[in-house]
């Protein structure tokens, strides 16, 4: 396996010590837990998605661990504006505030809360199981462009996280690019469901949910690859990454860095674990690998 030379990385307008970021919604509810993940080697951490109003989230079950993935429908539980205080002790650290809203104004309002406390904003335009939010907004290129613009004009690095549950993800990626995004994050979960044959009803309280983890890695690689062919802004790969080789594969598809979520289930220190194999002082510059599977 090829190794990467360690060193600071510029990811979508922010500086991080490595290429391995904590994905949104994974241990992102408290400042302390985000700090813990930073201390465990995450290059940057994305918070739980924060919205204009506090939300308790969907009734349980909210999550099921499958053989090869995770099915969840948390329903965007979040403390809303209270969260600004949560992460204020992390000021100066590479903390990306994930935010959601139902329209450009809401996005701008929530983003504004994090001015000064977050290093970047990640727009959740992709959660597949929240009525009126997430993918409901994120499958419409016009709305995506407008929401992105509403945030990017505030002057903070603006990442846009895409849903794979669309006919053509590149149309959405290009909309984000037009809206002034600093980077695209691909992908959020794949819309899915499991049914309990014993109880004869969907396993999740919300019935529908999102699939993450190893099962979706080939879908995520495809999306990153497609986006790399049609967009010019940096892409952050997300979805099923669980090993150093997966990171290389995402990079070769076109990702400048990765976000890791479900793999935290098997190994809370997955960032350190991957870094040990991924980096070596005699490694190649990551830059040589990004997109090298194209052409």
């Amino acid at each position, binding site marked *: 396996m090829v190794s990467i030379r360690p060193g600071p990385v510029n990811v979508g307008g922010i500086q991080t010590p490595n290429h391995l970021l904590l994905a949104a919604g994974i241990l992102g509810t408290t400042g*302390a*837990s985000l700090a813990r993940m930073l201390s465990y080697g995450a290059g940057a951490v994305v918070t739980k998605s924060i919205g204009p109003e506090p939300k308790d989230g969907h009734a349980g079950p*909210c*999550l099921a661990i499958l*053989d090869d993935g995770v099915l969840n429908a948390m329903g965007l539980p979040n403390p809303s504006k209270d969260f600004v205080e949560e992460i204020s002790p992390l000021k100066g650290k590479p903390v990306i505030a994930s935010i959601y809203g139902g329209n450009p104004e809401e996005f701008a309002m929530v983003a504004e809360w994090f001015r000064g406390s977050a290093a970047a904003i990640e727009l959740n335009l992709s959660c597949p199981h929240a009525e009126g939010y997430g993918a409901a907004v994120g499958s419409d290129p016009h709305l995506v462009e407008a929401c992105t613009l509403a945030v990017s004009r505030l002057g903070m690095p603006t990442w846009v996280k895409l849903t794979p549950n669309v006919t053509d993800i590149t149309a959405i990626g290009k909309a984000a690019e037009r809206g002034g995004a600093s980077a695209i994050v691909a992908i959020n979960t794949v819309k899915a469901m499991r049914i309990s044959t014993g*109880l004869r009803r969907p*396993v999740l309280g919300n019935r529908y949910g999102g699939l993450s983890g190893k099962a979706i890695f080939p879908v995520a690689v495809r999306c990153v690859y497609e986006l790399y062919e049609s967009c010019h802004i940096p892409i952050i790969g997300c979805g099923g990454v669980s090993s150093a080789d997966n990171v290389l594969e995402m990079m070769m598809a076109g990702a400048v860095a990765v976000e890791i979520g479900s793999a935290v289930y098997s190994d809370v220190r997955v960032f350190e674990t991957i870094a040990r194999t991924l980096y070596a002082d005699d490694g190649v510059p990551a830059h040589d690998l990004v997109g090298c599977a194209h052409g």
Partner: protein
Amino acid sequence: MTLWGAPMGDQVPRTVTITGIRQETPTIRSFSFDSPFEFAAGQFVMVWVPGVDEVPMALSSANSITVQKVGDATTALFSLNTSDRIGIRGPFGNGFFQGEKMLAIAGGVGAAPLLPLARGDRAMTFLLGARTETELLFVDQLDECTDLQIATDDGSLGVQGFVTALFDDLNFGAYDRIVVCGPELMMRAVLGKVAEIGIEHRTEFTLHRYMKCGVGLCGSCCIDPSGLRVCRDGPVISGDLLIKSEFGQYMRDASGRKQKI
């Protein structure tokens, strides 16, 4: 025979059928079911009440939970009858670090995760507290297998006051591990006491925090300032890790907002 629901390899919640319901106290019932789980005392499961919610409950034995009726999900559970079905994910969490000479301290429904310890003859002494005599949980069972000492707030049985009232007559030096489960203010009082004596590192507390995933991913149960996940790194946590913490001060609700305790 494969168990109902088992073919899914426990990927999704296992479906179990309620085989017995026992009214333990006016507000607490034990529900036993047809399919036992391998577990360690102190571990919990996520209990899915179909159509309502999924909530964490300690296993009070390999095939039972013991539930206090407090809100929606627990009320819905109380409306179920034998042969009704529920879903169970788990067991989750770490369970107690077991010692040779253990002291167990329980308040209210907090006796549930401690019962398997006592029934496994692991608890030399068991301090049991409740508001009033009728709310004392598992008295008969505990009496059979451990040195049971009782406190009630109203003095209707045992010593009057919180379980801490039983401390004065206790020789803490006689125990190598102390395990505690009950209302958080009671547990915080215990922590104060054991910290005074300097044995907080030998004392373990079973924490209750809002749990959604139960497996260490969602972050809803994390505590300050360590960021430890109560569902995965706990629910049993050593006292020394709790002294300078949110424990007894505040916890978070379903949305992640802080709530005073």
